[in-house]
């Protein structure tokens, strides 16, 4: 049965009605209209659906929307400040870190959570974390380059 659920996404409040079986990913796309979060495998393998929940990256396909009530959710729609791209988004463009773009929102949110951490990951940790998501186009190298560059840019701001 549908029930009222309140989600905080990118500091906006969304009052939706959904069944408990609604995943966070589906709720974001279907009920909040935030289709920037993509769904690839829907079982935790590909990482396309990665969003940030209370500061940590999580698979939005492996969490139910009811479980996300009262938690601060960030999606790709919240990265840019108006017309100004987030440094990581700019770095993805500068380093040619996307082709079809299907995986991009997931990678952006995963990497954002990492480079914004108070104790930013060292290179080994960064590679380990980035190995969480799949990209069928780029061959990963440019994604890694973009994240490294953005990590530096963010610290120089």
């Amino acid at each position, binding site marked *: *049965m549908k029930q009222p659920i309140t989600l905080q996404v990118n500091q906006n409040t969304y009052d939706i009605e959904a*069944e*408990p*079986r609604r*995943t966070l990913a*589906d709720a974001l796309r279907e009920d909040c209209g935030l289709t920037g979060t993509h769904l690839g495998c*829907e*079982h*935790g393998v590909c*990482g396309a659906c*990665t969003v940030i929940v209370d500061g*940590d*990256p*999580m*698979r939005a*396909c*492996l*969490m*139910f929307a*009811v*479980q996300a009530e009262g938690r601060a959710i960030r999606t790709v729609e919240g990265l840019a400040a108006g017309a100004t791209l987030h440094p990581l988004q700019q770095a993805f463009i500068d380093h040619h870190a996307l082709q079809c773009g299907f995986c991009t929102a997931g990678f952006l949110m*995963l990497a954002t959570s990492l480079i914004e951490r108070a104790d930013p990951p060292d290179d080994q940790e960064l590679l*380990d*974390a980035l*190995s*969480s*998501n799949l990209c069928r186009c780029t061959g990963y190298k440019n994604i890694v380059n973009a994240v490294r560059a953005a990590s530096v840019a963010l610290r120089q701001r």
Partner: protein
Amino acid sequence: MKPVAFEYHSPHSLDEALATLARVAPLEGRVIAGGQSLVPAMAFRLVRPGHLVDINGIAGLDHLRVEADELVIGACVRHAIFHRPVVAGVLGRALTDIAAHVAHYPIRMRGTFCGSLAQADPASEWCLLAMTLGARMIVRSVRGERSIPAHAFFQGVMSTDIQPDELLTEVRIPLPHAQARIGFDEFSRRRGDFALAMALVQFDLLDGRMKAVRVGVGAVEATARRIEAAEQTLEGGMPTMDRFQAAARAAAQAVDPSDQPQVPAVYRRELVESCVRRALERALSATLPKLP
């Protein structure tokens, strides 16, 4: 696919959770912890729970502490906490080594240590740890509390002694001796994937000889288990490469791997040999981390 419809319960105390679980257990009720195994299984409709009892909102289930000679890990402790050593010495380092192999980074942010044990996947790193080091699982229901030793807890592929109305509240791992060495190794084809073989070893190094040797192998049979033949090869001996190799070969002989087209039994035996040897080498060579 999408999961079947279910009723969602979000108790705030352990007592409330146990009462709810007792009520919904006969109605295909289940605990949800991190959901990182359960939700995929629900998406495939391999499991169709009628009720989910979410333990994430229960205060005080995320305890992680040393009590007497045991490390106690509560039901809501996530894999990611082990990214940094949580106890001094070899155990802290071993947990950190192992955690890096459990799934992917975002999954480790949400999935729980105890959930892994409850799931009892044959290739679960934490199940291998529990079996090899001789952990105890504490389960509770409205009927009372039980402490289950690892060898009785794991009953087969994704099957444990936890009853439908019981909640795994914590796992207790015996702290190794000061002279202990621990080493882990696994092989998987892609980073973060479930392993094809893994080994965990522990021994005390006393006067240059190995005592109280434990050799565990996982991802090869229905459940992880200790390999006596390999332990006997090492017990009382000096840690030499030849002896490590002999123990690794003994382990490869002793296991009974399934024969699959993509992973033939003979290949898995060879992986067991490599993993056991490397785990022993790692145990001997590893330096200890400093606690933050």
